[in-house]
């Protein structure tokens, strides 16, 4: 626990908090675009970019690594789009192909880089499962800055996002460019994935986008509140997971963040105010009672007592 009080650890905590909030918000967009698993494919596809960027500059300078990851994830996204639109392969198959082939390429390159002297101590492996403890102050600044940009994009164009996600045809009729919106959507999705890979890792980054959004869905029918709640769940999971992972030596951060967000999900699933299992069961019971009471009364009447 003393670790938590050091200023560096506090900065790391702050960054995972903001990261969780940003990814929770973008996760809502992905949920309503019905592309939750796209984030999984893109985060895996970022790995070759991470390794190539490292190999080019020779150090783990975060802005360059993030740029590499973004380029690689964007190439993956474009390839998925291309395969889907110009052959009879369905989107989920295309995602599976890009995900596994890019990850395979990433592992190939990682093995080659790890063989060199400088690569061996680079801690590039940390990008697979996330190692928040390895973050420097400068990394935290970069992450905070980019995450704030992402949140700002959602906040400023909130009305447009709503239109774009729920009634794209209407949005088009109003003169909005769906192409532009799609572009911006892809850009913020990739951005939030690549800033998360250092803390959460390429394999589990998708969870931080998917799980908070699904949890928030159990509490509200309003898109605005869904985004706010999802940001809260994501931020809470980010902080909680990071805190737990500091308890043990060399524990990876990513899995703990994911399990923390799953705990929020299970809580929401059971007790959520709108669609939670408990509330549904209670509603079912009252409805049954309402139906059965007059029926029982009628039966009594007919029996004559």
């Amino acid at each position, binding site marked *: 626990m003393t670790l938590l009080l050091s200023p560096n650890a506090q900065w790391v905590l702050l960054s995972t908090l903001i990261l969780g909030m940003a990814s929770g918000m973008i996760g809502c967009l992905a*949920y309503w675009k*019905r*592309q*939750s*698993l796209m*984030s*999984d494919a893109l985060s*895996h596809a970022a790995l070759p970019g991470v390794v190539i960027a490292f190999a080019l500059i020779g150090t783990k300078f975060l802005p360059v690594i993030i740029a590499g990851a973004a380029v690689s994830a964007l190439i993956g996204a474009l390839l998925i789009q291309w*395969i889907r639109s*110009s*052959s*009879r*392969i*369905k989107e*989920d*198959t*295309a*995602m*599976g*192909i890009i*995900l*596994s*082939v890019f*990850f*395979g*390429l*990433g*592992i*190939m*390159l*990682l*093995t*080659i880089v790890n*063989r060199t002297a400088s690569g061996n101590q680079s801690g590039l*492996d940390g990008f*697979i*499962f996330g190692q928040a403890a390895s973050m420097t102050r400068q990394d935290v600044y970069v992450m905070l800055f980019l995450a704030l940009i992402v949140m700002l994009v959602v906040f400023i164009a909130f009305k447009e996002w709503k239109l774009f996600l729920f009634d794209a045809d209407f949005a088009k009729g109003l003169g909005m460019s769906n192409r532009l919106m799609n572009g911006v959507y892809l850009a913020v999705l990739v951005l939030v994935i690549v800033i998360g890979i250092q803390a959460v890792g390429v*394999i*589990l980054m*998708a*969870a931080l986008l*998917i*799980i908070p*959004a*699904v949890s928030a*869905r159990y509490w509200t029918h309003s898109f605005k509140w869904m985004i706010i709640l999802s940001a809260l769940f994501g931020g809470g999971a980010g902080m909680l997971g990071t805190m737990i992972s500091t308890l*043990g030596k*060399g*524990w*990876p951060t*990513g*899995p*703990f963040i*994911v*399990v923390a967000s*799953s705990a929020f*999900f299970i809580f929401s*699933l059971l007790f959520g105010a709108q*669609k939670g*299992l408990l509330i549904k069961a209670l509603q079912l019971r009252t409805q049954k009672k309402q139906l059965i009471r007059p029926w029982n009364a009628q039966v009594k009447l007919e029996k004559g007592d």
Partner: protein
Amino acid sequence: MSYTGWILLTASLVGLSCGLIGVFLILRRMAMMADAISHSVLLGIVIAFIITRQLSGGHMLIGAIIAGLLTAVLVQWFNSLSIQHDASIGVVFTTLFAIGVILIATQVGNAHLDVKHALMGEITFVPWNTIELPFIGAVPEAAFLLAIVLIVVLLAILAFYKEWKITSFDPALAASLGIPVMLMHYVFMSLVSVTTVASFDAVGAIMVVAMLITPAAAAYLWTDRLSVMLVLSGAFGVLSAISGYYIAVWLDTSISGSMAFATGLVFMISFLGSPKHGLLSRVIRPFTIPSA
């Protein structure tokens, strides 16, 4: 058989059984389900290891089947609770996988089972870990397991060929004909888990996805017949396993990574050059067909 020979045989068995299973995954649009199962199988293996304290094939298989079925059931259940299908896949497998990784990091953390091994496989160690078989002699355990799984897969496909064909292409018709669609689904899911876990040792969790999806997708571009697609997909699986091995030797890098990359190459060639559904044929066709 030589060291390289055993590796190539093991890899080809992976390519063959994954290629066969993959065909049905593609046709049922469950490609991402393969991704989910290959991740959550890790949890089954880790729990089996924690309970028995040994890495034996049988226990791992049981753990993996349970984990795979648990994934399938949970996804189905969440989906019935009005969560979008792909979101429920995303919730389930990331959670199970994360629990598996945490257990490895906190409970197991020793030389027997580590995360990197589970993710990337260690096919180079396969030939060392042998068992004695009557009549045949010493055989690597992984290859033996894969051969059995391949036989099971083949038998299942032969036995349920008609049923799976109908349920894959027209589930409503299958249900009206009295085919137990749900049961078939779960049988199929267990088969996917078994194949995944048997391939685990050789190529690791992520590469299994490549082996399952990509050769079948490539075969899908060459033919419209299910039987031909099965044969092609198996052949592509073997081809990418072998060429992946030689790429890895040439570049001195991760074998499983190169195999996944090789499946991508096979797919890219099919995507561009396939006579039926390839990109080039689409570009060329407008100039040749209009006269007809």
